[in-house]
């Protein structure tokens, strides 16, 4: 056991009635690390994050956050956690600034300090002009940024981001990533995020786990996973329905998914040799990525 693990989960399970949503997972997250949880819809990402946030009681296993036990010291844990839930839950009865001020009270932050922090945070997410605006009048990206700001009002040491950029346009996503980067470098904040976007996981996370049906299907650094699970490069052929997969030796892995054929290998020359047999079908030779790993893990 390392002393700087800030989150430690051992054989964590969650049942909703008889349904097992998380089926015994173990992982450790170090202080200052950015840790991603990947997985298909319903894999158990949100459930796991809600258990870390002491929002959903654990059914079995052990979970400690910041040295405190989930289920026993929930109040202490929640006071150092910033939570960005999957669904925005801003208060439509309050304006933008009030959303931050009212939230700060739940953390017992004195009004003066709350006001100062709120103004700084609105500055940070570039919403200062909207301080008096109704929440309903904000765009999706603005709402998301405000939820993130709200999660930071009590200067948490751990930030839980459940699909922080789902449904947002590429610019806004880029912007949110920058903000997360700022937070990490300025404050050594620990970030736990769930995502469906492989680029997000690759860009942000140090280590990740892939959940499938409530179990850990893969774990490691993105680069490591790509290296160990698939080759360095991928040849992707489309509209290949009815064409048999090429015979390849064991240095290349061949996968067919519907009308898509993908070959993974360590060098481009070998993969390029396969191209002529597909004639004029659309194809692309590219570096393999986390998505390949993800789809491979989910398929297996």
């Amino acid at each position: 056991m390392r002393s700087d693990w800030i989150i430690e989960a051992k054989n964590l399970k969650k049942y909703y009635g008889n349904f097992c949503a998380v089926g015994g997972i173990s992982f450790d997250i170090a202080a200052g690390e950015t840790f991603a949880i990947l997985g298909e819809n319903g894999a158990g990402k949100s459930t796991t994050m809600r258990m870390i946030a002491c929002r959903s009681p654990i059914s079995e296993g052990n979970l400690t956050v910041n040295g405190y036990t989930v289920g026993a010291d929930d109040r202490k844990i929640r006071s150092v956690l910033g939570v960005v839930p999957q669904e925005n839950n801003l208060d439509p009865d309050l304006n933008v600034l009030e959303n931050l001020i009212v939230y700060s009270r739940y953390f017992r932050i004195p009004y003066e300090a709350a006001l100062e922090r709120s103004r700084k945070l609105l500055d940070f997410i570039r919403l200062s002009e909207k301080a008096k605006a109704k929440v309903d009048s904000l765009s999706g990206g603005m709402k998301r940024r405000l939820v993130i700001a709200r999660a930071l009002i009590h200067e948490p040491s751990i930030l839980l981001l459940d699909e922080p950029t789902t449904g947002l346009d590429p610019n806004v996503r880029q912007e949110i990533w920058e903000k997360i980067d700022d937070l990490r470098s300025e404050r050594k904040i620990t970030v736990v995020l769930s995502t469906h976007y492989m680029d997000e996981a690759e860009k942000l996370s140090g280590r990740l786990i892939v959940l499938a049906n409530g179990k850990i299907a893969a774990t490691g650094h993105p680069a490591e996973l790509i290296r160990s699970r698939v080759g360095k490069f991928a040849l992707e052929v489309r509209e290949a329905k009815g064409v048999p997969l090429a015979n390849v030796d064991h240095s290349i892995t061949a996968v067919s998914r519907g009308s898509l054929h993908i070959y993974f290998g360590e060098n481009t020359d070998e993969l390029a040799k396969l191209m002529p047999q597909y004639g004029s079908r659309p194809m692309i030779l590219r570096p393999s990525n986390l998505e390949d790993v993800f789809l491979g893990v989910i398929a297996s």
Partner: protein
Amino acid sequence: MIALSKVDVVDSLSVWRRNSRVYLRLWKTEMIAPVIEPVFTFFAFGFGVGALVTSQIQGMSYLAFVGAGVLAFTVLMRVIFEVTYGAYFRMVYQSTYDAILATPVNAESLAFGEILWAVTKGVIDSIFILPLIVIFGAASSAFTPLAIIPLVLGCIFLAGLGLALTAHVFEIDHFNIFFAIFFSTIFLCGAWFPVELLPRWLQIIAYAIPTTSVIDLTRAFLTGNFAGRHWIEFFYVVAAALICLEWALKSVRKRMVV
């Protein structure tokens, strides 16, 4: 374990302040309603029905009798709406509870704050309506301001009951059943006519409903006619309030923490 013991009052007050902030923003509309309703209820029951009722009721005019009914009915209605539709909106449509529960505030303190707020609204309404009652000549006792005591107990009882039911409601239309029952019972509870006029079996039902005791106690303070039964009614309402309060806190945890 007793859910009430898990309440952190400072946390509850933070929830209370969230609601009061929203209320203050809408104060104009929020404060006109509680005045309009009882005025017209007085027109209808005090003058309209009162003109037909020439006999004395429990030694008083109908107008004096119905004052407590108008007051309690208006105040309790306010509370009921707050913990049913109001709370349901915050709980389900606006996910306000969900956001609050991600902070150090626990489910019990949240529920207690909601009840505290509903009771506060009842008290604000009482403060508006009590002078009206005096103006209409429906309160004669020097104890009139103390009518706030049974009203607060009644508010806690119905706020607890209402919030507990809300925590069990998964379809907003189910409130219709609840309101049908509530409106039916309120006619039994001695707001508009004495319970003693009912057949024996209905009287028993009426006295089993704590609202009857709330109205009878309120009437005692407005008219200054106290009797021994009022002590029993008082403790009955206190017990009902505590039980429903506890039930509400437990129900909100069961609904929200899964």
